[in-house]
């Protein structure tokens, strides 16, 4: 990691103007053009070959075959390239944050090879190969690309509580994310407004907490999404946010929430989890045991943000309990009490966990493996403090793509860099910055608009998280992000325009997909 950082600082002198203008997003680490004529392919007959026995890889081949065959354009006759050969070094197909996504792609006039450490690296390389294809004339430039991500954690967050998103839509979001080489789906699955996750341990949670019986995720749905994500090299991280943001849990779990008429969440009589109720903890243990087995990834997100104290403050039983436990008036300590007990439960489940910055900031005793998730404007201080204390960090501040504004706002997201929190940060501190997560909170989005708001705006942070640190020139990104969005439209996704005038080769069609 440190060696890579040294390399990066060496490259700071490289001007993006010197880089080949290829329609790639995110832009690869190393690109060198080869002085031989472009390759010409026949999209209908192009083949992918491999010695690998991987079924997963065959599915990737099928996917990219499909993209090649989406539109029937006139083909050139003087074909020069018929096949891409894919070599995978390590047959291990476990998907972890540490899994290598490195690949080397070589395209020449009459030959093309893709070498990757793992099948997931091959997925990244296949996407790059596909992005090199000029769909007007089916040519590819002769080029050698050596590529790997700058950050290991490249997330996107979707909120299915404020508005429900269909399973099909979640899968489309995951698929589009893989086109921008994102690798973590942070599923903010429940929150105050609704509880769409159908738990096997507590079936009433979705029966009473979902908007309606049609607005739920069954166990089959969840596994469907997880498997789909895995096939796209995407790890699913579920978030069960507590002790705040839990209003929707209350209907199924009497006594679980704090009763506080007039001081509750979104106009209700209930607030955060009642930490003084001993019955709460066995529920959490059962539920997190279930969650950590349903979601096979190495992480679970525990939330912990925005705990509103007025509800706790207004409840006499809680006040009495606090004075009996020598914490009268100290609600930070009450929150810590809850978090500590929750973390003890989760620690016993052998999962790493991610928490929103408040949990760190309030000095809860967190394990060294904890990832601190910063989301507030003062994230630089959180990163400084957390990395100094030896904790790993991910960034979402500056990447709330749910906050829309007029114009090319992707440029704002593009400027943010998780490692830019302190000019004098040590290499050890920088190495603890794992990456970041683009967040689409659900207040203003549902099936009707989430795809077009997500893409291609999320591709700007995606490039920041993958590409070399020195690639920051908006002018260099502008034609690429527009090409990228037209590619998404070409593949049938409603990715919205980024330029104030323009067109795509194939415009989005609603009826084509009916």
């Amino acid at each position, binding site marked *: 990691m440190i060696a890579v950082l040294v390399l990066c600082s060496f490259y700071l002198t490289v001007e993006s103007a010197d880089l080949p203008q290829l329609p790639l997003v995110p832009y690869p680490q190393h690109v060198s053009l080869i002085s031989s004529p472009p390759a010409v392919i026949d999209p209908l007959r192009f083949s992918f070959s491999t010695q690998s026995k991987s079924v997963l890889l065959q599915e990737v081949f099928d996917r990219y075959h499909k993209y090649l065959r989406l539109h029937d354009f006139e083909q050139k006759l003087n074909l020069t390239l018929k096949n891409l050969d894919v070599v995978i070094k390590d047959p291990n197909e476990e998907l972890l944050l540490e899994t290598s996504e490195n690949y080397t792609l070589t395209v020449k006039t009459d030959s093309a090879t893709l070498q990757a450490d793992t099948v997931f690296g091959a997925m990244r390389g296949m996407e790059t190969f596909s992005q090199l294809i000029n769909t007007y004339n089916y040519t590819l430039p002769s080029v050698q690309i050596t590529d790997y991500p700058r950050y290991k954690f490249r997330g996107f967050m979707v909120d299915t509580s404020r508005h429900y998103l269909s399973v099909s839509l979640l899968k489309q979001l995951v698929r589009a994310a893989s086109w921008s080489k994102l690798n973590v789906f942070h599923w903010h699955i429940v929150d*105050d407004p609704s509880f769409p996750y159908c738990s096997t341990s507590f079936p009433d949670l979705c029966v009473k907490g979902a908007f309606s019986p049609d607005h739920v995720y069954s166990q089959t749905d969840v596994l469907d999404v997880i498997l789909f994500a895995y096939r796209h090299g995407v790890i699913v991280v579920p978030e069960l946010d507590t002790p705040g943001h839990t209003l929707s849990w209350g209907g199924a779990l009497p006594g679980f929430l704090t009763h506080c008429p007039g001081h509750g969440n979104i106009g209700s009589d209930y607030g955060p989890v009642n930490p003084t109720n001993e019955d709460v903890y066995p529920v959490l243990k059962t539920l997190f045991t279930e969650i950590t087995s349903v979601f096979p990834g190495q992480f679970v997100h525990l939330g912990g943000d925005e705990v509103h104290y007025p509800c706790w403050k207004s409840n006499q039983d809680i006040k009495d309990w606090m004075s009996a436990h020598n914490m009268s008036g100290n609600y930070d300590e009450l929150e810590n009490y809850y978090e500590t007990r929750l973390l003890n439960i989760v620690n016993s489940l052998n999962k790493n966990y991610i928490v929103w910055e408040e949990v760190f900031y309030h000095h809860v005793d967190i394990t060294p493996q904890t990832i601190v998730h910063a989301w507030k404007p003062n994230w630089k201080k959180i990163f400084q403090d957390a990395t100094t204390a030896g904790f790993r960090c991910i960034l979402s501040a500056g990447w709330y793509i749910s906050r*829309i504004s007029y114009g090319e706002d992707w440029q704002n997201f593009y400027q943010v860099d998780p490692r830019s929190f302190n000019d004098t940060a040590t290499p050890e501190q920088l190495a603890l910055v794992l990456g970041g997560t683009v967040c689409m909170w659900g207040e203003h989005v*549902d099936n*009707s608009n989430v795809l077009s708001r997500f893409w291609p705006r999320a591709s700007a942070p995606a490039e920041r998280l993958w590409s070399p640190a020195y690639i920051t020139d908006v002018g260099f990104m502008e034609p690429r992000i527009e090409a990228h969005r037209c590619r998404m439209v070409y593949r049938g996704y409603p990715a919205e325009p980024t330029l104030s*005038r323009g*067109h795509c080769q194939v*415009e989005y069609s609603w009826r084509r*997909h009916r």
Partner: protein
Amino acid sequence: MLFVLFSILTVGAYGSFNILPVVPFPQEAEMFSTNRRSLNVEEFRITTDQGHLLEDKVISSTINRYQHYFSRFKPGPLSPDGDITQVSLSVVYPEASLFIGVNESYTLNIDPHSPIVKLSANTRFGVIRGLETFYQLYNITDGTFPSVKIRDYPRFAYRGFLIDTSRHFLPVESIEMVITGLAMAKFNVLHWHIVDDPSFPYYSPSFPSLSEKGAYDSNHVYRIFDVLRVISFAENHGIVVVPEFDTPGHTLSWGKGLENFLTYCPGQGTFGGDYGPINPSVDSNYEVLHKLLAEVTSLFPGGFVHLGGDEVPFKCWQSNQDLVAWMKQQGIQTFNDLESYYEEKLLDIVHQLNTSYVVWEEIFNNGLHIQPDTIIHVWKGKWEDTMGKVIKAGYKTILSSPWYLNYISFSMDWKKYYQVEPYKIPGATPEELSLVIGGEACMWGEFVDATNILSRTFPRASAVAERLWSSEKQTNIGDMEFRLNKHRCGMCARDIPAETILLRSYCPVEFDGYDW
């Protein structure tokens, strides 16, 4: 016992079953009783005793449309058998054709005792409005209608929506979906800003080179058949298509297909290029305009054309020495006068074509000589002042300034659009106010295309639609929020991806138009 339902009575009844979930809210509604009527999904038919009506294209396509919408419903839980089996239509003047100002009034009677709902209208276009109201009265969740009698008509004759197909092209099916959504909000004008600087997608039989050279490419062109398809589709939804050919500015894309048409001004032109507005000193340009506009006004049957005339930059004209010399020779002193010279020649041409026209406010602001029947389209700031001057001068006017829906923001901005009152013009007399014939929501094309135009337009445009259709007393935000949410869910259930207006909510039937 009759309950008269004016908005004022529903204040505080937020979420109540008694608020009719209709947008735009009808002018008059009377509840017969609180008993609800159920729909007999199996037998339901829209029919008429006037047999010849069914042969009419507008009526038959409208009936098909609404029968299709209702056919998707399953019997409601409260109404397994259902007692409404029919909507019976009657039209007083079935021969009336579509124009801006055509009578759109209707009476809808959901009788508490009859299986037949009566919908009577003056014209076929009133039927379209009435069936939409009927659809919106239906509660998807329990399968029932209120027992209600509605008498309804628009407050303003001109209720427009602008699309811009030059900055980003919209495929015909995408325009049709916009029209479908507009009809759900009872809009009656589609202002088609068809060409502009970036591209010229309109295929002109008189000047094929305009789109050959000026369109983005040959797949981004509206051929005659496409234009007719849009016009016909719009007519079936009671919507007049008003094409805009904006000149003399905003014409960069024309220059590629017409020699010597634009003013040459190296480095001083549009987008920093070498060409600016139309060159008013070239006589043959007026022949081109005459021929093109004659073609356009015969193709678009609405009797209206929008001539643009906004944002003419003088920098290009100033830098062209030949033009400056010509001005001197003609005795034209200022560039404002030069613009007037151009506009007056253009308006003479259009007047000869016997068509009504709309122009952007600059034409009025700059004191040009215009025909008395010109409609002034106000789009800039301080619109109350501008409109005040326009109506004092005796011109008709439409409002767009506060309704640029392309400017998105992170908020529930529909409330802002909803709170606009077009009559709020200081010092205007009732006679003058009668010249305010309506307004128009604009969706300029900088950042929208087929991918996002529907979700950005709906239901935000419906807030404008209610202001233009409903009584001016209809202003309660809480009441509207409740109805607008139902309205947008009704759109989603009919495959229009209308976005959410509540921070947390769901629709009984979510939008499900993506199907990979």
